[in-house]
């Protein structure tokens, strides 16, 4: 479990002060995946680094696995595993050496650490590369090794700061599967991502950060529903036809060029009704589409991209 209360971080002083995090509250229950979304510079990594005991909060408090990040840093450190945005790997070390060393530092004996390392290399698909120096790994391989290192001591809490950035689709999917599996084992995950699809797929709860605060929070479905409407678009031959069609459908239909657009909470039913009305009026549509809001819409609406959103 992760509990965050009014967490704040200001870098620098005076004129140069950056208020990176300005009072963030959230809670992630045991075995839940919490997705933190936000544009570049929103404060996601700063939050993660404070929870990972690498940055001292300038205000508020946080508990990880029941331990206070300021008062009980070593208990917190034994509880979490982290794959941070900047991976921090030594290029001269071999993959398997990293995992075995860390296994031992977290408290396994030599043989156990060896077995655990072999297991994890297989999990992340690096079994045949473990004997190579990390400096020879591709970016995606480094991310996967980083995830393996985060898991070495079976942490109850996992911090994943943009774990799939730069990964190919197959590797991304493999990581999603691994994260889902960890969740089913009761691991609590805090995940930041730029991919809304990723949050939609994985997260039980999502918070959207903008400018150091949480601008919206809820389940992915809640947030999408909060955006309101599904949109039905009907393509017609020309503008005159579109005007006739709008008259046939009624006042909720708006003419947009050669199209009519109807916003409704119940898109599929409205689509069926509109198709009937058009057929009765003898109007032949050239195409129809039904768009349901995505997390992208929610995201763009809340962040700087919002101004571009209709």
């Amino acid at each position, binding site marked *: 479990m992760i509990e965050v209360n009014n967490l704040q971080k200001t870098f620098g002083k005076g004129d140069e002060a950056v208020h990176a995090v300005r009072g963030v509250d959230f809670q992630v229950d045991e075995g839940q995946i919490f997705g933190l979304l936000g544009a570049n510079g929103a404060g996601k990594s700063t939050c993660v680094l404070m929870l990972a*005991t*690498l940055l001292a909060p300038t205000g508020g408090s946080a508990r990880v696995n029941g331990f206070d990040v300021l008062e009980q840093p070593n208990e917190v*450190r034994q509880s979490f595993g982290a794959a941070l945005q900047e*991976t921090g790997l030594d290029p001269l*070390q071999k993959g398997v050496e990293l995992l075995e060393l860390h296994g031992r530092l977290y408290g396994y004996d030599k043989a156990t650490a060896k077995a655990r390392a072999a297991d994890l290399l297989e999990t992340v698909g690096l079994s045949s590369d473990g004997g190579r120096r990390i400096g020879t790994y591709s970016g995606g391989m480094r991310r996967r090794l980083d995830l393996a290192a985060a898991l070495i*001591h*079976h942490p109850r809490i996992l911090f994943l700061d943009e774990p799939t950035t730069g990964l190919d689709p197959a590797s991304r999917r493999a990581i999603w599967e691994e994260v889902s599996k960890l969740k089913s084992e009761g691991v609590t995950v805090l995940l930041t991502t730029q991919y809304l699809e990723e949050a939609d797929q994985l997260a039980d709860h999502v918070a959207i950060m903008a400018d150091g605060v949480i601008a919206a929070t809820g389940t992915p479905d809640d947030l999408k529903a909060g955006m309101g409407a599904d949109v039905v678009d009907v393509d017609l031959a020309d503008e005159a036809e579109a005007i006739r069609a709008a008259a046939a459908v009624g006042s909720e239909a708006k003419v947009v060029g050669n199209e009519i657009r109807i916003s409704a909470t119940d898109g599929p039913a409205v689509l069926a009704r509109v198709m009937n009305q058009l057929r009765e009026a003898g109007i032949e549509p050239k195409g129809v589409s039904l768009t349901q809001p995505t997390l992208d819409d929610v995201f763009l609406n809340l962040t700087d991209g919002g101004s571009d959103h209709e």
Partner: protein
Amino acid sequence: MSDHTVAPTKPASQATQIRLLTIRMLRKVMREPAVTIPNLAISVFFLFTYNGAFGSSGVTSFPGVGGNYLNFILPVTVLFSSISGGAAGLTLVADLETGYFRRQLSMPLSRASIVLAAILLGAIQVLVQATLILCLGLLMGADPAAGVGGALALLGFALLWGMGFAGYSVATGLKTGNAQAAQAATFIFFPLMFLAPVFLPMEQLAGWIQAIAKVNPTTYMLEAMRSVMIQGWVASSLIKGLVAAGIFATITLTAAVRVARSKTSRA
């Protein structure tokens, strides 16, 4: 072997941490010989060149040199090899640059273990390089007046002096976080190194150099090591050398601890 499918209960003891982290750093250093070899090469170079240049010249007849110039020059090269203690700071800087240092801070490790491992690495470097140079010197015909114990005393002095460099490199390296800066900082030791009775006895130096050499701790280190090589056990020389090296090491290691404290605590 315990079960690797369940979490370990508590982190490794501090002794284990230091041992494992030191081994990691040793591996790292051995995989990057370009960083360590030059220092060793320079020490060997000095040994051969100066012994070749002055060994058969009339210098040996100067008072203070003794009959064997090799005995006179070997302490210089051993002292030079102790600069390799700087590996401590350079390795930490490399870890800062790759972000591995920060990764260690996110683990349940004692902050002291991380820095102590680096200092230990420096100590091992000095001992290995100084031993190689010493053995080479003995093979070439150096014969310490204080015998085998004298040879070991030379290593002890190299180690103590090397700890001074280790502390200095850790302090500057962690402070700047930049390999070039840490490397450049070691250049201030060149004047210290050479404004001392390095190739000639004190009495043969120009007056102004003598004046500087008298306040240069390197002088007392060299004279202590030379006394062991040329005269045998001379308490006053040994004590002066120990005090000079001790002060140097204490100052730099204290600075290292202070910088490390601030660097390993949360920003």
